[in-house]
């Protein structure tokens, strides 16, 4: 019995309650509350990372009955994959708070929403009971809806509702799948993920795995998002405030792919293998489509949004491969994309704050006017396009390697996906050329360079991007043991 994960997950809830109760004239203190709590949260996650036994399986477990009548349990625990995602979620959460330091439009409510969002994000990655997982999964929707709807751009009303309805529609099918798993799980019906994996190995879901997989696929695929279910993403990203964009791209998208790795693959391995070629096909389409559409964008934020569709395609390709390299790669892309895209959105946010535009045509010559901002933006772009030595390369390389090794994914798909890497280099470099290099445009000509606070919150992301890129094992030593378990399960079924 360990209270560590419970504390990590629900600490932001305490911050939310405090922020909600602050009187109006003290609303400015909300950011201090949120920052303090998140700093503490990150410290706790750091402690968990430090004490984590990489070969020790699921750790920091808490498992008590919640609704015993239908076997719903409050069951939290973390393995290497969970831990990597939890660390990402907490770190980006802290950064999002610091990046919102100048928020002056009802700051109290803003930080309440940010903290509620954090509870859901942290919880999803450590929940080991499906109902609990679903509770956290849905908990994310409402705060994100309000972050976009109340603090967003011009078309925020449309974009926020679209985000909400798309994800809700996907997740209700997942709920049907969850209930069906429960009903078919044998004499001792259960929502527990580990027990469901055992039940599945015993043949409990034979014959209906395909339908169950479809239900979960719909829930997860909308969140990832996989083409053609991605259309909510560019809208939401463009309208969302910077911090919400960072968390949306950095953490929320990963919930979908995490769901595939944690739930769909181990519980429904037969269907996962049967569907693998189709998922790989959709992944490859996402990679190429996202990259191609990114070329045509005139708004930097929209360009990054479409690049996310493309990058998440690599995650799905790695997942579809079902190999150790592919799954390692998938998790590595998830982490790297969280760091790098977070950084990109932060830099675009800084530029927008200063110039009030995100149009590529109106921005140019950042490096001559604001060398630090321009330099970091260029750095993030290089990391995003998969330059070896930075984190983006690790995952994409492993994911492509895994899909080449896999017997489930046709070789030509890997080849097409590799073309996607080249496309990413092209649109990213083109963007850098237009925005960072060249003569300073009118909008850029009078702005000031990065502040100390801004340096403070981008530095951890830059550091980790380099660390993971140079020393792969810093990430993979956590991820790989957990991945091996899933590969074993997949190898058992034909």
């Amino acid at each position, binding site marked *: 019995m360990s209270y560590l994960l419970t504390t990590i997950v629900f600490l932001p809830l305490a911050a939310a309650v405090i922020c909600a109760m602050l009187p109006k004239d003290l609303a400015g203190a909300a950011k201090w509350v949120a920052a303090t709590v998140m700093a503490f949260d990150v410290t706790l996650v750091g402690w968990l990372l430090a004490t984590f036994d990489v070969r020790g399986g699921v750790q920091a477990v808490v498992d008590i*009955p*919640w*609704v*015993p*009548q*239908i076997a719903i349990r409050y069951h939290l625990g973390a393995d290497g994959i969970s831990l990597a995602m939890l660390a990402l979620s907490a770190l980006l959460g802290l950064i999002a708070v610091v990046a919102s330091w100048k928020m002056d439009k009802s700051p109290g409510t803003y930080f309440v929403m940010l903290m509620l969002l954090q509870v859901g994000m942290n919880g999803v990655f450590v929940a080991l009971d499906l*109902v609990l997982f*679903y*509770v956290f999964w*849905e*908990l994310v*929707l*409402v705060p994100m809806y*309000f972050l976009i*709807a*109340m603090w967003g751009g011009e078309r*925020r*009303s449309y974009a926020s*509702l679209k985000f*909400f*309805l798309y994800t*809700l*529609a996907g*997740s*209700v*099918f997942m*709920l*049907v799948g969850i*209930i*069906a798993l*429960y*009903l078919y799980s044998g004499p001792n*019906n259960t929502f527990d993920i580990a027990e469901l994996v055992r039940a599945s190995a015993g043949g409990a879901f034979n014959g209906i795995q395909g339908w169950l997989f479809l239900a979960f696929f719909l829930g997860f695929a909308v969140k990832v998002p996989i083409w053609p279910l991605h259309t909510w993403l560019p809208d939401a990203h463009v309208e969302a405030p910077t911090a919400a964009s960072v968390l949306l791209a950095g953490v929320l998208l990963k919930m979908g792919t995490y769901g595939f790795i944690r739930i769909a693959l181990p519980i429904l391995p037969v269907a996962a293998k049967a569907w693998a070629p189709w998922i790989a096909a959709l992944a490859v389409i996402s990679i190429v489509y996202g990259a191609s559409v990114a070329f045509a964008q005139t708004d930097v934020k929209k360009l990054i949004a479409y690049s996310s569709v493309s990058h998440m395609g690599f995650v799905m390709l790695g997942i579809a491969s079902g190999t150790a390299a592919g799954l390692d790669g998938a998790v590595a892309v998830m982490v790297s994309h969280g760091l790098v895209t977070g950084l990109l959105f932060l830099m675009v946010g800084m530029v927008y704050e200063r110039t009030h535009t995100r149009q590529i045509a109106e921005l140019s010559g950042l490096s001559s006017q604001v060398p630090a901002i321009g330099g970091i933006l260029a750095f993030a772009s290089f990391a995003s396009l998969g330059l070896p030595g930075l984190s983006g390369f690790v995952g994409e390389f492993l994911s492509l390697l895994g899909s080449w090794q896999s017997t489930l994914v046709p070789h030509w798909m890997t080849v097409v996906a590799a073309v996607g890497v080249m496309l990413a280099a092209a649109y990213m470099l083109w963007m850098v050329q237009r925005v960072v290099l060249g003569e300073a445009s009118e909008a850029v000509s009078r702005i000031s360079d990065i502040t100390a606070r801004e340096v403070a919150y981008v530095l951890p992301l830059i550091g980790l991007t380099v660390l993971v890129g140079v020393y792969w094992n810093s990430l993979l030593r956590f991820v790989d043991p957990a991945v091996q378990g899933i590969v074993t399960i997949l190898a058992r079924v034909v």
Partner: protein
Amino acid sequence: MRSYLLIAPELVMLASALLAMFADVLPVRGRRVAAWIGAAGAAAALVIALAVGPGSVTLFGSMLRFDSLAVFARAATAGLTSVYLLWLAGNGASVGRTREATTLALLAAMGAMLMSGARDLVLLFLTMEAATMPAYVLIGFDRGDERGLEGALKYFLLSMVTSLVMLYGMAFLFGMSGTTSLDGLRVTAFGSLGLIAAVLTIVGLLAKLAAAPFHYWSPDAYAGAPAFSVAFVSSVPKIAGVVALVRVVGVLGPQVRGLTDVMLTVAVASMVIGNFAAFGQKDVRRLMAYSGVAHVGYLLLALAGGTEAGSIGAVLYAVAYAVPSMAIMFVVAEEGPTLDDMDGLLSRRPLAAWAMLVFLLSLVGVPPLAGFFGKLYMFSAALDAGLVWPVVLAFAFSAVSAGYYFGIVRSAFLGQRPRAVRVRSTRNRAADVAIAICLLATVLLGLLAGPMLSVLGYALR
């Protein structure tokens, strides 16, 4: 004598109703006294109902039996009525004629409480009428408003016709079994005539619950009625209605082939019609009327499964639906009935706006609120009974319903239009407390459902 002790909650409700009616002659003066008396009486009835608890004794011949499901429904009815009257006490001045409203609500609630324990066709019919009659008056409460009167008349006529149809069916059932006791009904030997009698009998209940295709009265009646009447009529009596349906279908379902198919058809029709018609409604009362049709569809789906767990899930859901929908109508009664009236609610009354959000999310079925767990229990049972596609449809409609519920959220949170000057609200603290209680219940009914499920004996497998 013991029999009278066991119906003490209803007797307390009756006494409070009479006391409230003659509140004017009491030494304490004031418009709100009646509502305060009613709220206290209903709260006492709730406590007594829980203290008496469930029993297997049949009272008054074979008329009444309060098993755990009945006790749950009767306690919930009394509790909700108490909260309703508390709110009324806070808003007495703007409602007007508080005395009458209180008395009518208490009498309707008393009928509903007896109805949830009814074990006899005759008593079932009488209590159903007792629960409905005051509702006609509440719907037409505003004597000067023609639309209100039209709605009330429509409600009255349709309700009467379906009651008579129900009576007709009951006559058949009596003829077949030779008894009016629910437990004694035997209709297996009569083939399709049994089905006809059963369907005729449940028509009355379906109409009171506003299930399609008997829902036509509800949008007009609600949109014409004052919102404070809708708050009561659209929520509280439905709990007992669902319990009665559980009883009748529980006895006849296994005996009559095809009854569950009828239920399933009505369920799907209600979900489809309710959810689609709710889109584009500008009047929150009308929107809630159609969404109510949809929610009854979900309930009937659980009943159509024909399992014990489905029945219990449906009754739980009836409560999980009644609490937020009543509270939403409280806010509507205070702010005005159209979506435009909700504009800028966040800046005017932030707490009411956030409470409204929680109520609407619960109706959508977002965890961890009451509506989510209600749907989880209900649809799990239905899925277990093999109703795969209807359940998938119901879940899909839950997502669809977010589309129209969020119309209200958008107005309340994003609407900027400065509202026209309105008479200063005469609401006092009691009204806010009532909404806060509903908020607490909406959160806790979900999170702490475990003990409740135990008491009711919910077991999926």
